[in-house]
C-alpha cells in the first residue's frame, strides 16, 4: 500500500502539538488531495497531476487515499478540516456518501473540487470536473462495432456496480451497440474493475460461448485480464476494447493485442481542478459552471504511441 510518505509526514508535522506547520511559513496554504488507491495507476496519475500543479502554484500538499471506503473518506475530511486546508481536491468514494463530508468541509470554509466521479447533488462542491464517460463509452463502442463489422457475438465486462462510472459506461456502450441488430451480447458479467477477476470471468465466458468475436470492457485492467485469458486460449482473433488509456493497454495495442481503448485525461483533469481551486481562492469564483465534462479520446494503433501516463502528447 502506498499511502504516500508525504501524507504521513505531513500529518506528523501538522499534528505535533505546538509546532507551526511547515507549510504555513512560505506557502499559499495547504491543498489536500484525496483519491482512491494509487495501486491503480489512473488514480496515481490524478494525485500526481494535482500534487505537481498545486506545488507549482505555491501550495503545500497532503496526498491521501480513501480506498473507496466512505468512512475512511469521512475521516480524511476531518483531517483536512483539522489542518485548516485551503481547498480539497477529491476523487470521491461514493456519489451519495460523499455529499455529507463535502458539505462539512464547506461549512468549515473549505471548498472542494471534484474530479473523475460525480456526486448526486450540486451546490455542495465548487467544481465537479468529470471525464465524459458516456461520450468516451460511445467512442469505444463505435470503434468496437466497426471492428466487429457491425455483427457477431460479444461479451461485456462491467465494472464495480457501486461506482456510477460502471453504469454510465455500460449505458454508453449499449446506446450504440444495441442499435445494431446483428450484434448479440452473449454474456455480461462484472469483474469489479479487476484484472485477475477478468481473467477468470473471461475463461468461463469462453467455455460457454466459443463463438464469441468481441469483448468490450468497462476499464483497461479488466481488458488486460480478458486479453490474457484469450491469449492463453489461443483466441487472439477476438476483438477487445478497453477504457481508461493505461500504459499497459497502450503497449498491448502497439503489439497488436487489444484493439482500442478510450483515454480519460486524468492528469490534465487533476491539474484543471487545482487551477480552479487557485482561481476560487484568489478571486472568490472559478467563473465556470460547477459541473464540467471533459471529453475522452479514442486510442487505437494510429495514436497509441503518443500516449503516456493518461495524457496524449500533442
Amino acid at each position: 500500500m502506498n499511502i504516500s510518505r508525504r501524507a504521513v509526514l505531513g500529518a506528523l508535522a501538522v499534528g505535533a502539538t505546538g509546532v507551526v506547520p511547515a507549510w504555513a511559513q512560505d506557502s499559499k496554504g495547504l491543498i489536500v488531495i484525496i483519491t482512491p488507491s494509487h495501486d491503480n495507476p489512473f488514480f496515481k496519475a490524478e494525485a500526481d497531476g494535482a500534487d505537481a500543479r498545486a506545488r507549482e502554484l505555491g501550495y503545500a500538499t497532503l496526498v491521501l487515499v480513501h480506498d473507496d471506503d466512505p468512512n475512511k473518506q469521512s475521516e480524511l475530511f476531518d483531517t483536512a478540516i483539522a489542518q485548516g486546508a485551503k481547498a480539497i481536491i477529491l476523487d470521491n468514494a461514493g456519489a451519495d456518501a460523499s455529499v455529507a463530508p463535502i458539505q462539512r468541509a464547506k461549512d468549515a470554509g473549505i471548498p472542494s473540487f471534484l474530479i473523475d466521479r460525480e456526486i448526486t447533488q450540486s451546490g455542495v462542491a465548487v467544481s465537479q470536473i468529470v471525464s465524459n464517460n458516456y461520450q468516451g463509452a460511445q467512442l469505444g463502442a463505435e470503434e468496437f462495432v466497426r471492428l466487429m463489422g457491425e455483427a457477431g457475438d460479444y461479451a461485456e465486462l462491467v465494472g464495480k456496480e457501486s461506482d456510477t462510472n460502471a453504469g454510465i459506461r455500460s449505458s454508453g456502450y449499449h446506446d450504440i451497440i444495441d442499435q445494431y441488430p446483428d450484434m448479440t451480447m452473449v454474456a455480461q458479467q462484472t469483474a469489479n474493475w479487476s484484472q485477475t477477476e477478468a481473467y477468470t470471468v473471461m475463461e468461463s465466458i469462453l467455455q460457454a460461448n466459443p463463438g464469441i468475436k468481441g469483448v468490450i470492457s468497462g476499464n483497461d485492467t479488466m481488458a488486460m485480464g480478458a486479453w490474457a485469458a484469450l491469449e492463453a486460449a489461443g483466441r487472439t482473433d477476438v476483438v477487445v476494447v478497453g477504457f481508461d488509456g493505461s500504459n499497459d493497454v497502450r503497449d498491448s495495442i502497439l503489439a497488436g493485442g487489444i484493439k482500442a481503448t478510450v483515454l480519460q485525461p486524468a492528469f490534465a483533469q487533476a491539474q484543471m481542478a487545482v487551477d480552479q481551486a487557485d482561481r476560487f481562492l484568489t478571486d472568490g469564483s472559478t467563473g465556470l459552471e460547477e459541473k464540467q465534462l471533459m471529453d475522452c479520446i479514442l486510442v487505437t494503433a494510429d495514436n497509441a504511441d503518443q500516449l503516456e501516463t493518461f495524457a496524449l502528447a500533442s
Partner: protein
Amino acid sequence: MTRALLAGLLAASVLCGCKIVQKAPGAGAGAAAPADMVGQVVADTYEARLLPHVAQGAVDARELTAAIGQGLDAAGEALGARAAGGGAWNFLAKGEGTVVGADRESRAAVLEVDLDGDRAADLQIQLGPVVKGTALRDASPFYVFTDFKDQIEFAALARALNARATEALALPEGDLLGKRVAFEGAFALRSGSDPIQVVPTRLALEDAP
C-alpha cells in the same frame, strides 16, 4: 495524525481481498433511464427553443468549412461554442449542396454532401437511427450539465434530441445520388481533420434541376 497512520494501516489491510461476482447475462449494469425528466425537457424545448436557436445561429456551411480549414480553434472562438471542460467545438450550420455519396445500409446512415461543386464530399449529414455525438445539446447554451442529476441523464438528453431530429426526417426511397440537398443542423469537431457530421434539424431533398 493518528488518523492518517491508521488510515494507511486500514488501507493496507483491505487490498488483497478479491471476490468474483458473476451476473446473469442480460442483467444490466446501467441505471434506470431517466426518461420522464428528459422527455419533458425535450418536449418543452425542442420546438420552442432549439429549432429557433439553430435557425438563428446557423452559419453558412461553406463559410464554416473555410474558417475551420484556417484553424479549428480560431473558427471555434469566432463561430462555435465549447463546454467549460473544453473538448469539441460545436457549430450550428446551414447550407445547400449535392449528394455525392450515401450509406443507407449502415444503422449509422449518412449522406455525403458536396457544397462547392467539385464533386468531393465536404461534409456528412447523419440520418440515423444511430446518430453520433452530442452536438445538438452542446451547441445550445440552455442545456446545462449542472441542471441534470448525472452524466446518464445529461447523455439521455443528447440522445433524445438526436432521435427527435432524425425521426422527423422524411427521405425518398432509392438512389439519392445527384439530388440537391438543403439542411440546417449542428456538428462537433475535436480536430480540424475529422469529418464534419451534421445532425440535421431540417433536411430537404429535391431532384437536381
